[in-house]
């Protein structure tokens, strides 16, 4: 199936998404990758507040290249999600609505997705120039010192992604993996 959806996510919409669906996302999403996740973890460990309330929001695992003058952002494709696996379940338990990245997730992340009715999308890796066109606004809102790894708020229009892990725990990569072509 194909859907046009908006972010922050509506749980009733997420519920009907199935692994393999092609989805265009419009609305507000946030970037965070390795260093930002590490810092968020430390913040939570200290009992302090995170810079963003993740409830129903989407994190895009992405660190852009610098924008040229007059441009919103540079190249802006997904990074490998598995490096965020140690951190993701905690954020999902705090209400994180969805994640966009590329590549496999751990069983713990998959379980947390099911438990929280969340979703994991893949954007096409290595299509950063193409994807950057769907980003209409970008603003660093936390951890500025982390450079490309800072947390950014993005306004996106029809960002193309594919559902990899749906709220029922179906995993598109696993569905394809056994599929040896003879």
């Amino acid at each position, binding site marked *: 199936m194909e859907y046009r959806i908006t972010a922050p996510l509506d749980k009733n919409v997420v519920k009907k998404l199935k692994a393999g669906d*092609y989805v265009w996302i419009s609305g507000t999403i946030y970037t965070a990758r390795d*260093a930002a996740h590490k810092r968020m973890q430390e913040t939570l460990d200290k009992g302090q507040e995170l810079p963003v309330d993740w409830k129903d929001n989407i994190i895009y695992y*992405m*660190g*852009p*290249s*610098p*924008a*040229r003058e007059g*441009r919103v952002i*540079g*190249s*802006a*494709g997904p*990074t*490998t999600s*598995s490096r965020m696996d140690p951190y993701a379940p905690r954020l999902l338990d705090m209400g994180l609505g969805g994640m966009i990245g*590329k*590549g*496999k997730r751990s069983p713990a992340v998959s379980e947390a997705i099911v438990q929280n009715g969340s979703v994991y999308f*893949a954007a*096409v*890796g*290595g*299509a*950063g*120039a*193409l994807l*950057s*066109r769907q980003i209409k606004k970008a603003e660093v809102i936390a951890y500025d010192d*982390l*450079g*490309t790894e800072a947390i950014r708020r993005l306004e996106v229009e029809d960002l*193309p992604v*594919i559902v990899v892990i749906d709220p029922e725990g179906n995993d*598109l*990569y696993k569905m*394809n*993996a*056994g*599929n*040896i*072509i*003879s």
Partner: protein
Amino acid sequence: MIREIGVDEITRQIRDMCIQANHYLSEDMVCAMKEATEKEQDPLGKKILGQLEENLKIAGEEMIPICQDTGMAVIFMEIGQDVHFTGGDLGQAVEEGVRRGYTEGYLRKSVVGDPLVRENTKDNTPAVLHTSIVPGDQVAITVAPKGFGSENMSRIVMLKPAQGVEGVKQVIWDTVQEAGPNACPPLVVGVGIGGTFEKAALLAKQALTRPVGEKAKDAHIRSLEEEMLEKVNRSGIGPAGLGGHVTALAVNINTYATHIAGLPVAVNLCCHVNRHVKRVI
């Protein structure tokens, strides 16, 4: 006759090559991507390959890097033994080229200085520089920025000689299988067989800079390349790991002599953004 080359010329070339590599793929890769799109039968796979071709077009026309991971700069320099570098330290000149390329070219700075402390150096230096001395009075420079989505899925295995070619095939197969979507397929699979521990890794890296479509010279290695490419493309992983017939564009294998007791095999995966620019000065 000794030929003098100013190191500022090296800086200039490397600056430009870093920018070029990150915005335009070499001709062999562009052709391979086009062929892949034609060959792919899976509808989603075909759509994704079409997007990747469109991505290449946008990158070149609008000067947006092909991928936001503009890599760690891997640089090979084959230096003619009759060349004398003047005007400064060659190593520093190379670093300066990378620094200028990545800052002036709006490329992402993805390098941390100490691997454990992990502070960004903010100019993508240092590079990984491999030099070799060759006959003649020319310098061949290859700049190959390497993304880490695929680098992280690479491996080296010290096989026993008894495991032979079947062992090698297994290592290649396992590496691609485990990488799946993480390494941004369609891949170029660089393989190094033989040498020592570090030589095998270097052979694999160099194999990635060999133009796609250019086959190995030895007949038995050539047929191993063909066999493994066919096998990998039957894995079902497909473009972006979302299923299809094109998982790899090429399997390039480089070999070297080795010890009677060993059979090192390194598999260096590269994504479809397999960047390599070569210039001879």
